[in-house]
C-alpha cells in the first residue's frame, strides 16, 4: 500500500510531466485585444493601510486603544452602578432611505438607526452584476460624509462584491447629494463592520466627490 509520501511524490512527478508553453499566437491574440479592451478603473484610490510602516501602525493602534478606553470610561454609569437609573432603548430613526442612481448603478436603500445599532438593506443593480448588503454600521466623518456598510448577502458581482465580503456606500450631504460605493476587494475581512469602516476611513479618507455627478432620484439622510 502506498504511503502518503509516496503518493505525493508520484502525483507531483506526474503533474510535472511534459513541457507546456503558451503558443505565441495565443499571447499575440491577447495583446491584440488589449487596445479594444478598456480597463475598469477603480472607484477607489489604491492607497492602503499596508503603506504605513510598522512603527506608524503601532502608534495608530495605541491611539485607537486610548480612544476606546476614553470613550468607554465616559460611558460608564456615574451614579452607583447597580440599581441606577433604568436605560431607555432609543427609538429607531431613518438613517438613509431612498431610491436613486449613481455611477451607473441603481440603488434601493432603507437603513434605520437606534442608538449605535444600524439595520437595513441596500440593493444595488449594475451592469457588472447585482448585490444586496445587510447594513450593520455607520459612521459620520468630521468632513460631513455619511458612511454606511454591512455584509454582502447576495451577489452576482463576484469581482467587486463577492458574497460574505463587506461593502457599503458613502454619501456627501448637500443640496446635490453625491454617493460612492466602498468594497472590501482583496483586503482581509475586518472583524466587525465598524472596524471595516474605520479601516476604510483610515486608508482613504474622504472620497473625491468633486469628480462625481450628483445622484439621480431621492434619498432621505439623517441630520
Amino acid at each position, binding site marked *: *500500500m*502506498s504511503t*502518503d509520501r*509516496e*503518493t*505525493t511524490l*508520484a*502525483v*507531483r*512527478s*506526474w*503533474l*510535472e*510531466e*511534459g*513541457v*507546456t*508553453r*503558451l*503558443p505565441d499566437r*495565443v*499571447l499575440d*491574440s*491577447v*495583446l491584440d*485585444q*488589449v*487596445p479594444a*479592451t*478598456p*480597463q*475598469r*478603473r*477603480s472607484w*477607489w484610490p*489604491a492607497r*492602503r493601510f*499596508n503603506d504605513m510602516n510598522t512603527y506608524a501602525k503601532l502608534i495608530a493602534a495605541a491611539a485607537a486603544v486610548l480612544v476606546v478606553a476614553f470613550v468607554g470610561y465616559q460611558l460608564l454609569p456615574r451614579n452607583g452602578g447597580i440599581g441606577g437609573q433604568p436605560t431607555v432603548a432609543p427609538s429607531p430613526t431613518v438613517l438613509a432611505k431612498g431610491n436613486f442612481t449613481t455611477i451607473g448603478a441603481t440603488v434601493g436603500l432603507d437603513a434605520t438607526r437606534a442608538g449605535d445599532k444600524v439595520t437595513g438593506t441596500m440593493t444595488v443593480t449594475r451592469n457588472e452584476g447585482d448585490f444586496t448588503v445587510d447594513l450593520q454600521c455607520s459612521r459620520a466623518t468630521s468632513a460631513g460624509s455619511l458612511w454606511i456598510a454591512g455584509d454582502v448577502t447576495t451577489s452576482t458581482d*463576484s*469581482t*467587486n462584491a*463577492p458574497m460574505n465580503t463587506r461593502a457599503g456606500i458613502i454619501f456627501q450631504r448637500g443640496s446635490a447629494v453625491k454617493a460612492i460605493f466602498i468594497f472590501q*476587494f*482583496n*483586503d482581509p475581512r475586518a472583524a466587525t463592520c465598524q472596524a471595516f469602516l474605520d479601516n476604510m476611513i483610515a486608508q482613504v479618507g474622504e472620497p473625491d466627490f468633486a469628480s462625481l455627478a450628483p445622484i439621480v432620484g431621492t434619498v432621505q439622510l439623517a441630520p
Partner: protein
Amino acid sequence: MDLELVERAQRGDRSAFALLAAGIATRFLGVSRRILRDIDLAEDASQRALVSIWRDLPQLRDPARFDAWSYRLLVRACYAEGQRSRRWAPNLHVLPVDGPAVGGGLDDVIARDQLERAIQRLSVDHRTVLVLHHYADIPLDRVAQILEIPVGTAYSRLHHAMRAMRAALDADERPAAREASR
C-alpha cells in the same frame, strides 16, 4: 513577480502588461491544462484570464497580491471555459505526454495511466485544489484565498483528491500482489 510592471500595467501601460503577460503565460497554461485536461480549453482559459487581468487590473488594490489575484481570475476562466464547452465529462481525451517518461518502464506507464484515470474522475473543484497545491506549489491557505473557500474546505478537497490518487496507485499494485500470492 515584478511589482513595478504590475503598477505600470495598472496605470494602463500596454508594454508593461505585455511583459507581465509573457511572464505568467506559460505558468497559466500549465495550471489550466492540468485543471481542464484539454489543451485547447486550457489555451482559451489562459487567454480569457489574461484579458481579464488587463481589464480588471486597476481594481487590484494591493499590487503585491497580484499572484493570488491572477490565479483567481485563471481559475474562474477555467470554470467558465469548461461550462461553455460542456466538456467536463470524465472521458475527456488523455493528454499526450510531451517529454520522455520518467523511469520509462512499463510499471511507470501503468501508474501514470492509473493516475490519469483517477484525476479525470475527480470533480473540477477537487482537481483545482490538487493542481494549485501540488503543481503550482501554492500553500493551502493561499489556495483557499484564491478559490474564496474556507481553509478547512481546501484541506478537505485536497485530502479527498489525494485519497483518490492513492487508491489509483494501490489499484495498480493489486494485480502484481495477486500474481505474487499464487
